[in-house]
């Protein structure tokens, strides 16, 4: 399952809110490069902030796509704000909550919070950051550019994730994969 940075959608309020989780695992290759051992330091596997932003983009992107029944090609157009104050390490779970702030035919803005759920007993979930994003509905772009007809944004990987989360995508958004 390439380039999926969330593991499951756990809550969906159509057009309003979507919650997804991501388990950080030492089996993920990128953690071995972020950061590898150096001459002076042992390896330090932490989830890259850029991929946490991607996880939020997928969470919020599904919410925005679902609002129009996946008819629109929803692309991340702008990271309005991203603040993270704690590192996520192997064994941690990230919980992304995205809400739609504004929505119109051309696109949407979302606000998101990132929580860290530690596997250690007695440790409460903690909010570790916020990520606000803007999405564009690609076919409604101002320059009038045309894109392929099939919805290449919500690909088979997304369909599998949504199916596993109990969310049904309409058949006519097939991705030709």
């Amino acid at each position, binding site marked *: 399952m390439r380039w999926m940075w969330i593991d499951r959608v756990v809550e969906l309020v159509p057009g309003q809110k979507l919650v997804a989780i991501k388990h950080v695992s030492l089996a993920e290759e990128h953690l071995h490069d972020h950061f590898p051992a150096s001459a002076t330091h042992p390896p330090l596997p932490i989830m890259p902030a850029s991929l946490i932003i991607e996880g939020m983009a997928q969470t919020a992107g599904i919410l925005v796509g679902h609002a129009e029944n996946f008819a629109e090609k929803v692309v991340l*157009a*702008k990271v*309005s704000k991203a603040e993270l104050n704690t590192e996520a390490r192997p064994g941690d779970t990230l919980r992304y909550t995205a809400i739609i*702030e*504004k929505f*119109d*035919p*051309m*696109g949407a*803005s979302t606000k998101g919070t990132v929580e860290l759920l530690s596997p250690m007993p007695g440790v409460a979930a903690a909010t570790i950051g916020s990520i606000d994003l*803007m999405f*564009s509905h690609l076919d*409604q*772009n*101002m*320059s*009038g550019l045309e894109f392929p007809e099939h919805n290449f944004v919500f690909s088979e990987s997304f369909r599998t994730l949504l199916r596993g989360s109990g969310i049904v995508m309409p058949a006519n958004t097939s991705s030709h994969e």
Partner: protein
Amino acid sequence: MTRDEIFSKVQAVLVDALAVDEEDVTPTATLTGDLGAESIDFLDIVFKIEQAFGIKIAQGELFPDGSAQSSFVKDGKVLPEGIARLRERLPHVDFSTFEKDPSVTKVGSLFTVDSIVTFVERKLAGK
């Protein structure tokens, strides 16, 4: 709300949306040329102006949408009937300088901080 008060709120919106310094957001600053706005920023600005002033802005009302382009352009210039159409749709925009050199590449310079302030002023006045 006075024009100065509207300007202050518009200024705050643009500082937030475009990550620019307050002193750069002058009345004559152009959104694309001076403040570095890209296409998605225009939607962001519309959303933030709606929020800041509690108003609803229809698609193509503050900035032109795709349908405003197309057949009114010849040899890289916007034809007089095109300018007339734009003026009708965008009464908050000052076309006087643009009319002297209506190159398509200059369309971006039409959208100044002042044009947003005028738009909000008209909108709040119920025009």
